[in-house]
């Protein structure tokens, strides 16, 4: 059993890596890019949701928002620890950006990132009230669910395991959002909800990236990604349709 194989062929055929010494240079770059996008997004999401705690109408909602704020930061820390194995200065990294900073509400960023801050563009927009926070949480929470299924298959096992641990808690965040949305709709908040849906829907959709992405092809070759952006986006749109439909929205 002495014959070996080019590591890229191995990865393309579904092989996985467990030790960072085996990671090829380009693989490393793409894996780091994916991890930093996740870490930055979670830190920005946590920072953004922190202010929503004070929008909460009651204790139950306050606890839900606090929990989301806490756990997003925890998830960022876990993935940042994997980056640390590759040499990232984790202490400096977490203070690189003002994670609570937001652009003006009516700015249109499309899918572009801001210099050096790899958060998904949706996390650059400000939340303007409790209903808005809940709607954003529902849409982005469902998107995260779709993304977690994809990320849990990443070919770098130490990272895949972190994502598998995180996934159920992220799913719970979306459930908390849906429970909150049900209460708002039950209390006659439909029109406010519709306005927030119109605002957040295209912004969350932009987070799935472009169709026929060349970067996706590179990442897929390494087993870092498995499902194209457009397929993930379609999955999310279907999920959103089902959940909103169930609430009569």
């Amino acid at each position, binding site marked *: *059993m*002495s*014959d*070996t*194989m080019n*590591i890229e*062929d*191995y990865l393309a*055929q*579904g*092989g*996985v*890596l*467990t*030790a*960072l*010494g*085996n990671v*090829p*240079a*380009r693989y*490393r*770059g*793409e894996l*780091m*890019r994916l991890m*930093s*996008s996740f870490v*930055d997004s979670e830190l920005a999401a946590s920072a953004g949701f922190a202010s929503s705690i004070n929008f909460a109408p009651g204790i139950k909602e306050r606890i839900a928002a606090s929990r989301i704020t806490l756990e997003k930061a925890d998830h960022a820390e876990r993935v940042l620890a994997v*980056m*640390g*194995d*590759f*040499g*990232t*200065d984790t202490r*400096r*990294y977490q203070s*690189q950006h003002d994670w609570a900073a937001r652009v003006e509400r009516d700015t249109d960023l499309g899918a572009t990132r801001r*210099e*050096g801050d*790899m958060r998904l563009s949706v996390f650059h927009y400000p939340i303007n009230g409790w209903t808005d926070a809940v709607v954003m949480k529902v849409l982005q929470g469902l998107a995260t669910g779709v993304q977690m299924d994809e990320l849990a*298959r990443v070919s770098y*096992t*130490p990272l*895949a*395991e972190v994502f*598998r641990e995180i996934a159920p808690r992220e799913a719970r965040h979306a459930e908390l959002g849906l429970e909150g949305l049900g209460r708002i709709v039950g209390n006659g908040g439909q029109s406010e909800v519709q306005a927030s849906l119109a605002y957040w829907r295209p912004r969350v959709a932009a987070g799935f990236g472009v169709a026929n992405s*060349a*970067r996706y092809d*590179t990442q897929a070759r390494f087993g870092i990604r498995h499902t194209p952006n457009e397929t993930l986006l379609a999955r999310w749109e279907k999920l959103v349709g089902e959940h909103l439909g169930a609430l009569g929205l």
Partner: protein
Amino acid sequence: MARFLPLKVTDVRRETRDAVVLTLAPRDEDRALFDFTQGQYLTFRRSFDGEELRRSYSICAGVDDGCLQVGIKRVDGGAFSTWANENLAPGDMIEAMPPMGKFSLPLDPNAARHYVGFAAGSGITPVLSIVKTVLRREPKSRFTLVYANRQISSIMFREELEDLKNLYLGRFSVLHVLESEAQEIDLFTGRIDAAKMTALFDRWIDPKSVDAAFICGPEPMMLTVAQSLRDHGLRDDQIRFELFASGQPGRAKARPVSKATEAGEGTQATVTLDGATRSFSMPREGQTILDAAIASNMDAPYSCKAGVCSTCRCKVLEGEVEMAVNHALEDYEVRAGYVLSCQSYPLTDRVVVTYDE
């Protein structure tokens, strides 16, 4: 950042003609740092003719063995493994980073699991650590090991595995598959391929009984075994892989360093990414290698742009660059020519870098 610490070689045991088992002892003050989880590995470093070499070897001891042991099989042309096999002696000091890697599942003393392991050649080392630990810490669990080797004389830990079978009677079984030695049962002769895997599942291992599988060996063998496990109903999170040491990158060659800044204002930069090479002119000041590559429509990886995360690491093959800030690369990486492209400005009128190495 992890750092290297001294370990004392307390025993060198010849395991086979071309493999040794080293027993290592950390200093008292480092002892806690070298506590390990079954299946982890140690990364060693040593200079050979002025070039620093790093090599990782799996720990073969169980967590309750009370010692730190690694198995090192000599690889043809491998400087480190040859040195370890031929020159290391008790009393020598060797440098290693604390244990790393995650080739294990959390232990549960109340669990009654059926684990299977597939190891080829020296791929046995981390699997042996898991076998010993699981059998001891989970008294109701059992382990089936499928172990492929070329011939009987090349089987590492053959006696130790026999002892374990006797110690954990009924809970541990080993199926030896030998490539070039006929055995009574045809199934156990030859190489592990898809047909052999199916036969194993038909006659020796009930796939439905398997809770988790560990695979360690060369890439093609791991792909074959993993695919067969999936075909027989195991989920990805039940299958653990550890790639063989042979897949590790070659030696990090030190580059000749000349710090002389060449006169002139512009630089001709050549950048390789994903096998494609582009050349362009860039200024000596005000623009980093990364920004210049991006400006030339190359999708070079980066994240923080502050010299902190190391996503943008590339290697300088020709010419000189200067990093404004480096919080991420270690000295040995810098000596080997790696730079953070988001912090690198050219010093020479020609610079050649690659993101592919």
